[in-house]
């Protein structure tokens, strides 16, 4: 099984995630699409790691997981804060960047 297939899959996933970020307006969904992009990156890293027989890539992926978890925590915290203040859950509506 050629590694290229995994990479193409990763590219597809990444592009899908990107479309989501650009098209959707609900912050929760945008965060989900970011997760998609991150997991696509992780997939590419693992594919390279497998190809080169070098496990450094796996450690990178683990760190990516951690960073993604942090991002989610903060992002969802923001969403909850927005909801509490009765702001619209629409990234276009809250572009003023103040509470």
């Amino acid at each position: 099984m050629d590694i290229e297939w995994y990479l193409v899959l990763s590219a597809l996933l990444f592009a899908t995630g990107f479309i989501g970020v650009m098209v959707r307006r609900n912050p929760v969904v945008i965060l989900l699409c970011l997760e998609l992009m991150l997991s696509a990156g992780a997939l590419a890293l693992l594919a390279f790691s497998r190809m080169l027989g070098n496990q450094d890539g796996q450690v990178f992926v683990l760190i990516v997981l951690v960073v993604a978890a942090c991002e989610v925590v903060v992002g969802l915290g923001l969403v909850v804060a927005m909801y509490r203040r009765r702001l619209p859950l629409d990234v276009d509506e809250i572009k003023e960047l103040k509470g």
Partner: protein
Amino acid sequence: MEQIAFFVGAIGALGAAFAVVIVKNPFYSVLALVIHLVFLAGIFLLLMAQFLAAALIVVYAGAVMVLYVFVAAYVGGIEEPKWDSSPELRIVGPILAVALFIAISIAVLGSGLSALGTPGPDDVPSGFGTPEAVGHLMMEDFLIAFEAASLLLLIAAVAAIVLAGRRREDRKKLPGGEGA
């Protein structure tokens, strides 16, 4: 056998990913992403990253997505209003993304990788992808990254509490209502 497994996984993961983007209700998007992650874990297994596959399930499906579920349930399944402030993005965005995909594919399938050469699966050292091997790497070569990541987690936890935590003085003290 591997091909079949890969394509099953790939179709599942991709389909779920499309569902994430397309589905209107955020709650279903979250569920679609869970399915995507399960398929992705399978693909990880094909790449001999069993520890990461387990970590992906435990961390993502078990913790991160639970948070999503919470939040999605909390803020309710609000569907996006039909009115779009910039409808041109609906067309431009996908076109650009497809362009990006094509560019990456050209790079992957064309010139880029052939130069690197592809060692077969036989070249993999024993214990590849086991918790032991990854743990050794992490505690020896990538210790600083590991520590930095743990610090980051701590900061994120604090930040989340600060952001989402209920503030009592919000209503009492500050007339503007927005405490720092």
